[in-house]
Structure formats: structure tokens, C-alpha cells
């Protein structure tokens, strides 16, 4: 009986493993890198070896057995602070990427699909937004609307939205001419129906790749803002503000900044790898089963 379970377990494990193996390598690596950070964001209390807010050791210790990354300028455990920072950094980056993606894709696909004058006007507006350098516009918005986390998320989202709109507009333009879109239009599908049921699902593979790049730059912008002292406020840890403190003590504790820096790079890199993996995954089955392709353009 137990043997059966073990065999079944091993078989399902093997099939799961072969499923993982069949995925593009960058996708697997990216997800493997990202999972620990998601766990850190979800259960920081379980993973952190020390209290990230408690001053409990000699300041600026180098890495040791009990403090794996050393201690900060007031004697708090750096590893625990890195772990607690994951929640804020991941939340800000994912939320702002999601907002930018939703707004940008809606605007872009609509603009590209409708075309003509609407398209021209919307894209000129996007051009204007694109003319503002990223961080400068984010800083401007934060000056005006304050420093709360939600302002930060919206500022990052607004800064990234125009390029997403530009990109999805191209997709909308391409898909507009597809046979199945035309078929739906002939059978009386409304503009909204076509956009939601035909254009969006078919643009999704390409758009998901763009979304992962978006998430990666959101991590970097969020970290930049908190590095500048405009993100999470101390004592709340974030990778950006930890790096800022690291600069102040670079001559006394050169290893201080390694932890948070590696965290930012790993998360940003993981998103990019996932995007690259998705691109490879979808490249093969792109266009498969679309009417335009099979009928040769109705």
C-alpha cells in the first residue's frame, strides 16, 4: 500500500519534473530565483533570524555566524532587514507594473485597433508623456502629491505607462488586420467585444513579455526612489534606503551594501529571465490557429 503511494508519488514527481524540463530554461531559472523573494515578502517573520527593528548587537559588524550579512550602523541584523524589505519592494514594483500594464495596454490596443484620428491624438499625448524623463516625472509627481506608498506606486506606473501604450498600440495595429478580427466584425461583433475577446487574448503572449520587462524596471525605479530617500521611510527597511545607509559607512563596512544590492539585481534579473523565457515559449506557438494565418488573410 505504502509502496503504491510511493510509486505514484515518484511518478507524479517525475512527470512534474519533465514538465519543468520542457519549459524554456530562462523561465525556469527566473521563477526559481523569484520564489524565495515571494516567500520573503509573504512570511518575513518566519524567515528572518532576528528582529529587523531591534538594536541588538555591535554596529557595523562584518558577516559572521550569527549575523550572516553583518549588522547595520545602529546594530540591527542586515539579513533580517533585507528579508523584511522584500515585501515593500515587491509590492511597489508589482503593483506599479500592474497599473502601468493595465492602463497602457487598454490605451494602446484601443488606439491601435481604432486607428485614424483617435490613434493620432492618443499617440501624440503619449509622445508628450514620453518626453518627460522617467525619474524626473516621478519626482515631480511625488513633490506634488506627497510621499505615501500609493503615490509612489501611481507615480512609477504613470512614468512607465506611455511606453507600454506605444508597444501595445503596435500589437493592436497588427491584429486589426487579422482574419478572425475581420470575421468577428462581419458577424456583427461590437468594438468592445472584438477588443476584449479577440485582440486582447491574441496580443497577450507578446504583452506578457513586455510586462516582465516592465516589472523589472519598476523594481529599479522603486529602489532608486527609496535610495533618494523618497520611498519607504526609515526605520522601515527597503533595499534602496539600506544602500543609501551603506554609502555613509562605506569606509568602515564595505560589505554593508552587498546584500540589498544583490537582492535588487536578482529580482530585476529574474523578471527579465521570465520575460525571455515567455518569449521563447510563445515564439513557437505564436500565430497558430489564427484564421488570418490559416485562410491566408480573409
Amino acid at each position, binding site marked *: 500500500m505504502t509502496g503504491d503511494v510511493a510509486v505514484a508519488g515518484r511518478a507524479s514527481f517525475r512527470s512534474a519534473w519533465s514538465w519543468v524540463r520542457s519549459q524554456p530554461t530562462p523561465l525556469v531559472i527566473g521563477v526559481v530565483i523569484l520564489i524565495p523573494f515571494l516567500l520573503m515578502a509573504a512570511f518575513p517573520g518566519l524567515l528572518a533570524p532576528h528582529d529587523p527593528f531591534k538594536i541588538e548587537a555591535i554596529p557595523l559588524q562584518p558577516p559572521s555566524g550569527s549575523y550572516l550579512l553583518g549588522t547595520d550602523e545602529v546594530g540591527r541584523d542586515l539579513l533580517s532587514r533585507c528579508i523584511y524589505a522584500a515585501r515593500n519592494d515587491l509590492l511597489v514594483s508589482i503593483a506599479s507594473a500592474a497599473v502601468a500594464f493595465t492602463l497602457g495596454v487598454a490605451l494602446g490596443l484601443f488606439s491601435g485597433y481604432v486607428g485614424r484620428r483617435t490613434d493620432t491624438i492618443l499617440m501624440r499625448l503619449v509622445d*508628450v508623456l514620453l518626453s518627460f*524623463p*522617467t525619474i*524626473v516625472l516621478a519626482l515631480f509627481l511625488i*513633490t506634488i502629491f506627497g510621499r505615501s506608498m500609493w503615490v509612489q506606486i501611481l507615480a512609477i506606473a504613470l512614468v512607465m505607462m506611455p511606453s507600454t501604450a506605444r508597444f501595445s498600440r503596435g500589437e493592436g495595429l497588427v491584429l486589426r488586420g487579422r482574419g478572425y478580427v475581420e470575421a468577428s466584425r462581419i458577424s456583427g461583433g461590437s468594438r468592445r467585444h472584438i477588443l476584449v475577446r479577440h485582440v486582447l487574448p491574441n496580443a497577450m503572449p507578446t504583452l506578457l513579455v513586455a510586462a516582465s520587462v516592465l516589472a523589472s524596471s519598476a523594481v529599479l525605479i522603486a529602489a532608486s526612489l527609496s535610495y533618494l530617500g*523618497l520611498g519607504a521611510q526609515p526605520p522601515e527597511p527597503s533595499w534602496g534606503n539600506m544602500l543609501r545607509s551603506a554609502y555613509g559607512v562605506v569606509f568602515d563596512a564595505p560589505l554593508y*551594501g552587498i546584500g*540589498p544590492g544583490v537582492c*535588487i*539585481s536578482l529580482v530585476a534579473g529574474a523578471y527579465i529571465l521570465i520575460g525571455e523565457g515567455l518569449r521563447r515559449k510563445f515564439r513557437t506557438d505564436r500565430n497558430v490557429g489564427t484564421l488570418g494565418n490559416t485562410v491566408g488573410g480573409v
Partner: protein
Amino acid sequence: MPSLRKARLVGVVAQLGQLLAVLLAVSLLTFILLNALPGSAADARIGPLPNFSPEEREQLLASLSKQMGLDKPLPIQYLIWVKDAANGNFGLNYQGLEVSQVVGDRLGPTIELGVASILLSTIGALIVSLIAYRTRWRVVRGGIQGAVTVLMVMPTFWLGLLLVIVFAAELQWLPSAGFTSISDDFGENLKYLLLPALTLALPQLALFFRYLNAGLRDTSHAAFVTASRARGLTNRGVDYRHVLPNAVLPTITVVGLVAGSLISGLVIVESVFSWPGLGLLLVESVKKKDYNTVASIVLITAVAYVVVAFLVDALYRVLDPRTRRPT
């Protein structure tokens, strides 16, 4: 061909018109955001004034509003604001100093750092991509590719920290932060310039490399390359005379766009190295809620971006005759 020249002229005029329209829209958006904030500009200017009674304060506010043109409707205010900005008059900052003066003082160092980084990154990217393209060893190519990927996901300030750890803390070759004016001591200035310029240049180099590398690979398959090889040109001759010039073209646009939005990187790098440029001023002003200074920097950088993008477009037309065809 007079008709061709005329068509080209019309094209240039249309381009200039578009440039003007985008500039106007950019200034309008800045103005709208500036006026979205609570409290008037006059209120912000006079501050709390503890010695004044509420009535006196009200009076002062009214006269100042009138003087600043704040009693007029918003569209008129916008026109006044744009006219002043075009004349280089951005009003006063929170300390009552001329914003144009404060900003002007910071322009020199920013331009110096920006130009230095672009020079480093373009020359570096050219050398590195040519090495990767011409090398026979896959290890070298793989190593360069790996380094570039790492640079792409490294936030600027972390890269800066690593450079400071190595060159300032460990080797003690270069100062970790600071600035000496170029007119005071050129050698000292260069010493302070090197680390920030390198920090800014390395991620750019990675970006340029990706485009150059793709360009070199695409061009190497072109028919004219095969043709030149068939004519008996040496590998070196083909690479430098035929492949490189064609591969560089798409990268020029990217270099232009990066140069136009350089300020985003400058904001970080200048704060890291206490480099007294526009970026550092922006961060300081954001923290002090100095709306006038922030708005003027936003406007200046956006206008710079639009103008640079326009110039790059024009340059591209000159360099690549294929894009010159009148449509």
C-alpha cells in the same frame, strides 16, 4: 529637381511644427501639474510669517497674488508663465533667489558629467562590441555577454557603491565623492569626475552594446558584405569599411535617446557622488518642496529631450540617405 527640394522643405517645416506642438503640450502639462497642488504659489512664497496678523497676511497675499498675476484666469497665467520661461525667467525659489540663477549654476557640472559619460560609453561600446564580433574565442564573447547582462540589471547606485568600495575604499586611488570646478583645477576635477562618469557610463555601455552587437550580426549577413568578400577584401577591410558603418546606424538613435534622457541617471549618480549638478538640485528641491525649481527642471529636461530627439532624427536623415526620400 526643384519639386524634390520643395517636398523636403515642406517636410522640414512640418517637423518643426510638430516639435513646437510637443513643446507647447509639455509646458502645458507641467503647468497643469504645478497648479494641481494645494495652496497658491503666493502662499508658498510668503511662508508662515509668524509676526503677521491674519488680516495683514491676507492683504500681503492679495497684493503679491496681483503682482505675480495670480488673480488672472488660469489660461492667462499659463501664457505669462510660458512667456517668462521662454525668456529664462522661472520666478523665485523658496529662499527668494532667482530660479534661473540657481539652475544656471548647476548646468555646467551636469553637462560636463553627461558628456563625459556619453563619450566613455559610446567609445567603450564600440571597442567592446568590435572585440565580441571579431574574436575567435567563444569564451571572450560569452564573458562580454554575461558582463553586459549583469550591468543591465544592476541599479546605478549599487554599481556606484561597488566602484566606490573598490577604487575609493580599498585601492584609495580616487575620491569617493565631491567636486572641484574645472576652472579651478583641471586635474582635481578629472579625479572627481572619473567615478561618477564611469558609474553613469557602464549601464549605457551595456545598452549600446546590445544594439551594436545586434547591428553587427544582422549586417554581417547582408548581401553587400558577401559581395565585398567575393571582391577579395580582407576580413578587416570588410568589418571596418562595410559592416561597421551600417551596423552603427540604429545605435545612433539609441545614443540620442539616452543622451536626451540622461537626467534620469544623473539624478541618481549626482546624489551618490555629491556632484553639484541639476540632478542633485532636483532631489534637494523635491525634499524641500520647492515647486518652482522642480517645475523649471522638469520643463528644462523635457524640452531638452524633445529637442535632442528632433536633432537625432535630423542627423539620421543626413547619415542615412535611404530615409531622405520625400514621402
